[in-house]
């Protein structure tokens, strides 16, 4: 019997593996307070989900026959939360043995069994931008995943997001806080060294790109083609070439205002795009420049001064920057804080004076824009993926709790059901025998 169940499970897995990507499920969410983010609040609203997509939103919709209905009476329904900067669901974070490691791809080391995926779901998070660490001036290619706990890495992978490459400035890439860990000091040791090595790498990438262009030109000449060799492929430079061609964007870990501006200058020198600055605790000092360049930031709500370069952080940062036209998202950078991003978003109302709507954008549509996925997720709109989080109270309330997390119409987290299962498990365990007996 158990054996049959097992075979069933295998078959189900095979079937899921073979089913076309994106084929989601049907669901009807009834009578909730819908925080759509982009289209205001709908009280007593219903959502019809067909094939994992939002088909209809409104009041008094009629559910099709046989569809699973979730009663959201008295509850708050919002788009699934998006974490623009974290390191969950990976086997390894840094390729720290070298300063430039642009050849590595987080895509190659997705760990679909990281329990942090489930943790994320318990906090309403449905999508993450999971990144290379900040040990290197140039890290690796990041990846965007949906938090489909129990599914394969391929099913979690989001192919339509921007391709992004991790950069890092300041203390981490110069290994300033790694005294005693590193046997030998590594170049670069200073902030000027960090910018210099990145510039040097882009210069290399540019000549590598031209080498290929030259080869492709020569190849057209039939007389030469037999003895003209293609250049050696260089996987370390290829992502930088993609950036020079506008096919990949930079996500740059930065703290100080000066180095942040330096990086903007570098992007203009080589003509690459910056997706967002990470942490950027001094962004409030250069808010005009960021707004003018239309470069967003992905930051913490509070929690600064954990190292020298983070001392000038202020609680008003996220709110202040958002008010001044910078695209701001709140990130977790962690597999634990990831479950309370809604609390962090709420802090910007107290510090920074954001409205409910503005605060919620920091963890929904704004990170979606930063990742280039705003047409698919980030708000409750007809045609978008049905990635949804349901809360018992307003998600910005200090007393709120995520009750259910849905991705593409499929329920991945159901608090009531989960607690019930846990209680059953506990009850099934044999009670301890008391006292000796024979």
């Amino acid at each position, binding site marked *: 019997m158990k054996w049959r169940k097992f075979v069933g499970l*295998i078959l189900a*897995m*095979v079937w899921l593996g073979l089913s076309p990507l994106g084929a989601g499920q049907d669901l009807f969410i009834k009578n909730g307070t819908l925080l759509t983010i982009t289209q205001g609040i709908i009280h007593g609203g219903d959502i019809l989900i067909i094939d994992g997509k939002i088909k209809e939103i409104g009041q008094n919709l009629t559910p099709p026959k046989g569809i699973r209905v979730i009663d959201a009476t008295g509850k708050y329904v919002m788009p699934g939360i998006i974490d623009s900067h974290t390191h969950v669901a990976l086997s390894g974070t840094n390729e720290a043995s070298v300063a430039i490691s642009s050849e*590595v791809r987080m895509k190659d*080391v997705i*760990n679909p069994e990281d329990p942090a995926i489930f943790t994320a779901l318990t906090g309403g998070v449905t999508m993450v931008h999971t990144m290379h660490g900040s040990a290197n001036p140039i890290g690796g290619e990041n990846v965007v995943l949906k938090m489909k706990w129990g599914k394969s890495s391929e099913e979690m992978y989001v192919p339509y997001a921007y391709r992004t490459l991790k950069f890092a400035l300041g203390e981490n890439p110069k290994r300033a806080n790694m005294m005693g860990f*590193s046997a030998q000091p590594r170049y670069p040791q200073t902030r000027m060294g960090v910018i210099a090595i990145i510039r040097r790498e882009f210069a290399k990438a540019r000549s590598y790109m031209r080498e290929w262009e030259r080869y492709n030109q020569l190849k057209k000449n039939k007389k030469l083609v037999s*003895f003209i*060799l293609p250049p050696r492929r260089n996987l370390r430079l290829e992502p930088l070439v993609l950036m020079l061609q506008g096919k990949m964007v930079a996500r740059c870990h930065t703290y100080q205002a000066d180095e942040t501006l330096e990086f903007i200058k570098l992007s203009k020198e080589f003509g690459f795009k910056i997706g967002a600055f990470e942490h950027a605790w001094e962004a409030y000092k250069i808010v005009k420049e960021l707004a003018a360049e239309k470069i967003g930031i992905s930051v913490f709500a509070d929690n600064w001064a954990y190292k020298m370069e983070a001392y000038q952080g202020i609680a008003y940062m996220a709110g202040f920057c958002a008010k001044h036209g910078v695209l701001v998202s709140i990130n977790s950078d962690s597999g634990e804080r990831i479950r309370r991003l809604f609390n962090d978003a709420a802090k910007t109302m107290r510090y920074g004076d954001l409205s409910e709507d503005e605060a919620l954008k920091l963890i929904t549509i704004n990170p979606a824009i930063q990742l280039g996925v705003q047409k698919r997720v980030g708000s409750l709109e007809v045609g978008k993926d049905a990635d949804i989080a349901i809360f018992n109270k307003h998600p910005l309330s200090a007393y709120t709790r995520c009750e259910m997390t849905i991705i593409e119409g499929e329920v991945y987290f159901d608090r009531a059901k989960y607690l019930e299962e846990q209680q059953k498990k506990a009850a099934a365990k044999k009670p301890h025998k008391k006292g000796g007996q024979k």
Partner: protein
Amino acid sequence: MRVIRNYLVFLLVIGFFVSSLPAEKVKPTYAVVGCRIHPVTGPVIENGTIIIRNGKIETLGPAAKVNIPEDAEVIEAQGLEAYPGLIDAYSQYFLETKSPSGSTAQRRPPFSAPAEERSWDKTNFLVLDNLKFKKTTLSSLHKAGITTILVTPPQQIFAGVSTLLNLNGEKFPPMVLNDKVFLHLYFTTSRGGYPSSLMGTVALFRQSFPDAQHYALQKKTFLRFPAKVSRPEYDAFLERLLPYVVEKKPVVFDCANMQDIKRAINLIEEFKLNGFIAGANEAWRVIDWVKRAKNPLLVTVDFKPPLGSRYAILGEELKKKAEKEIYPRNPAELQKNGLTFALVSGKISNPKEFIKKVTQAVEAGLPADKALQALTIVPARLLQVDSYLGSLEPGKIANVILTKGQLLTKGCQVTRVFVDGLSFEVQAPAAKGAQAPSVNLSGKWKVTVVSQMVTMEMTMDLTQEGSSLTGRLTSEMGNWEISEGTLSGDKLTLVIAANVMGQDMELTFEGQATKDKITGSISFMGGSAEMTATRIPDKS
């Protein structure tokens, strides 16, 4: 006087020459009679005879149809089963693992500059040059019915080249069937240098294979147009990769978990390698990938869920169930999906344990005949030795094993093995001299182990049934199962499957037991320690 002395010298010289004559000249002829023959590639023959001559199976068949040659030594095998010698196509027996020179390399933290360039390149590591013969290993292999082994290099990203041995004696050169079988690749990191992460390792593979292709193209173009093209600079690493990347000689990816299997398949497909997948005890979890890719499989019967697998991290209960019930179904699941595979020992370092685990896979649903094929003809095909090994057929090399009881059933005992036509009588386990146990040792024991280095306290739970014991040792180092235990009179032997700092090893205890006290010594990896145990009285 002088004449006599010269005569003696002469005799000695003659003696020397005679004893060093090639062994094949004196390979005996055997007639194994009265056994049930399992040829693997043909139907079972009851009351059969096998004639072994000059290292080969000369003929075999029902007793009535096979004449016993006059010169043959007759081996009475009534009531015994005859099988082809078993092949373990992924093992590390006899491998002399060298620790890195100097201990600094190990102490170096991961975040440091590269210690040496290309420290991950061991493509020049030939297993054959790194073997050390051990008689006990040979006899334990024979005892398990294993006559042929592939010995793989120690873990490294580009790990080295494996060797295939036919276990026909005590010297390696005559054993070698192929000294360059596979290039072995691991998803591991290079300690103290680049790459220090799994993603770095994948990137290194993705860079190295096209590098070799490019190097080959450079060489080829130079030879065609020496006047126009500059001579490529010699690169030892790429040179050694060429056979695998250009000529498509086989490479083996060691796959510790389901993600590794997918990584390997992606690499094999991207760079069109002739890739084998080894390990793969999570193949059942990515069965659609494995079915689509159709790479040859060397499947381990190590049923431990890999580190980080949900079956290992979601509680002790699930982990135990996984090891006992779920992972043992992996071979059966592969078979149901129409895949052929060899079963291999991999990380299991004890041949007896290996066969026991194969038996467990049979109990979990793998048909016994498929299991037998996975230990004989299938690995023979994958290793390209099936024209002369892997089944009992006339003309094949005489690797034959005789067993009491059917192979892969409980209580089966190998009594004799022939390798290359040479007979090795397998020592029967202490069964003959066995005495009824004089005491019952079931219960809890307090154990003290004293060696030169360390004193350790442990508790031991023993369960005795007749003369066999099972149980476990519990200490700060974790729980160690007693994989085998016998009590003959008051003589106690325990084999302990220990794990010390992530390293699996086998400890053997031998000593004497009374009702309340056990004393003796425990041996491990060439060392030994005194062990005493006193009974913890049952309070109730």
